């Protein structure tokens, strides 16, 4: 058990090759080929049930792929899930906070789970709380926080160990616009230090903040590139139009 994350191997942050996941007859993710560069803010978009969360769950080691390969920060998702866990942070839609613990206790717990102890851990806690503006509420129970505060606390917990890559699964669902803006400032701050970010979202303004986007539809990656490239690829005026068009196609196919 190492205190600092085992140095992530060089190369792209994420590489998937023909990654596939099925649940019985249902194909959740089909033949996904994807590459995410180090330090990139990558957005994964798609209607509900398009395979975003399944993709994240495979990349974070929560779920084994049915077939295909993937590496995350240089480690194989099948063989080195332990090494991946040390080098990534994950923030789920549910935030994964202990509501009966205070802000500082939540951070201390996750920092401890990531192997930080003693003065090293306490220094990191102070640092995180300052960066994310949590200091003034350090002693407040997480359960009594509003959505925006919970979100920032969850991010603090997920990044306590300075991971090389952070997965954010719909992090801003149910959070007010001001808090969302604040959250994105923090995401850019992380990215500026070289942290790779993979984020899923339903908000088009957030999608436009990503450096590159991947569009999933019924398990297939059907669009990839910068906002500009994706819009041109579909010959539609905006990302929002692309999204709506995809949703319409999905529903048409399902009907």
């Amino acid at each position: 058990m190492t205190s600092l994350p085992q140095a992530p191997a060089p190369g792209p942050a994420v590489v998937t090759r023909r990654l596939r996941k099925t649940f019985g007859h249902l194909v959740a993710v089909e033949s996904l080929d994807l590459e995410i560069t180090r330090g990139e803010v990558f957005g994964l978009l798609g209607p509900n049930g398009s395979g975003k969360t399944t993709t994240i769950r495979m990349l974070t080691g929560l779920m084994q792929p049915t077939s295909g390969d993937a590496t995350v920060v240089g480690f194989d998702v099948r063989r080195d899930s332990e090494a991946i866990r040390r080098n990534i942070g994950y923030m789920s839609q549910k935030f994964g906070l202990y509501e009966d613990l205070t802000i500082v206790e939540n951070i201390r717990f996750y920092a401890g789970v990531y192997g930080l102890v003693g003065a090293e851990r306490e220094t990191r806690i102070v640092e995180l709380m300052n960066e994310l503006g949590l200091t003034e509420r350090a002693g407040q129970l997480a359960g009594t926080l509003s959505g925006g505060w919970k979100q920032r606390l969850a991010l603090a917990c997920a990044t306590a160990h300075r991971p090389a890559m952070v997965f954010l699964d719909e992090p801003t669902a149910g959070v007010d616009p001001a808090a969302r803006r604040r959250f994105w400032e923090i995401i850019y701050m992380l990215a500026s230090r070289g942290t790779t970010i993979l984020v899923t979202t339903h908000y088009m303004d957030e999608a436009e903040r990503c450096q590159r986007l991947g569009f999933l539809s019924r398990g297939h990656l059907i669009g990839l590139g910068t906002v500009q490239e994706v819009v041109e690829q579909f010959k539609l005026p905006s990302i929002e139009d692309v999204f709506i068009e995809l949703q319409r196609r999905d529903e048409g196919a399902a009907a």
Partner: protein
Amino acid sequence: MSLIDRLRRASFWPMLRKEFIQMRRDRFTLAMLIGIPAIQLALFGYAVQTEVRNVPTVVLDQSHTPQSRRLVDMMANTRNFRIIGTVTNREAVRNAIERGEAAAAIIVPPEFATDLKRGHTAQAQVIVDAADPLSSAAAISAAALTGARSGPELTGRSTPVVAPAVDVRVRPWYNPESRSSHYIVPGIIGILLTMTMVSITGAAIVRERERGTLEQLVVTPIGKTSLMLGKTIPFALVGYLQVTVILVLGKLLFDIPLRGNLVLLYLLIAPFVVASLGTGLFISAVTKTQVQAMQLSFFFIMPNILLSGFMFPRAAMPEPAQWVGAALPLTYFLTVMRGVLLKGVAMNDIWRDALILTGFAVVLVAMSVRKFSKTVE
């Protein structure tokens, strides 16, 4: 990195620390965990007088001799039987019991005194209304005991006189008066440990699943061992605290005899606690919500209360009920506890039950760890 450093950084510690903070903050549950032993003890010790006194009894004395009258007197003197009248034939005995006027009958046949004189086994019969297994067990034990005692007294020889009419073996010598407050203390310890270890532990883990923190934990480097140990050890400690509360209160309120070796007692609690924690872990692995976990643990606890020998003597149960009882760790735990606590027996008398308990612990933990690991994946 040195072993000590690895130990220091083990994710077990933050897990343990978190559990204690959460436990401290959940005042209601904590108060329940510590308060329940006291309330249950008072409830069972004072209110539920399972000791059976004064079972209304009719006498059919066909011998009409000083010996037979002496036997009936001895029975009455145990205070388990309250003689409500004498009858003259068996039909009247049956009627009295069927109408519910009597719950027991002492029948001394005509040849009782002559058999005694000739040195034969003099037989007397005690009929007990077995509808209530508690009173029947108490009455039967009293009858058997009195029978054994009356032999030497009536004849001057040590031959057993009364063969109990119903073949139920009760071992009355460590609790000859069927003092239930004594008998109930080991039972309360067992039931409480079962409730705490199984239902509270099960729910505590399922809560993490419900709130999404379990998923969050799985993407951290926390090991499954740390997760499970950190989650269960605090409850094991609570269990030991409960045992201590019951023992101290039992001593203060009911003066229960602590005959056995307390160190041995605390040691023997361990396999039972582990087995129960295993069950709790298993329940948490097969349920998705706290409500489900609570229902399932209730489903598990009911047979423990009814069939383990906690409430009713197992000997008085129909065979299938005895089989179910034999599959419950609590059954063996009760034997062990009653043995050590009340009889003061040593390890060599209860090693078999202790071994079975340990077996339960190993199997249940192995099963639930496997099941739990799978659901976490």
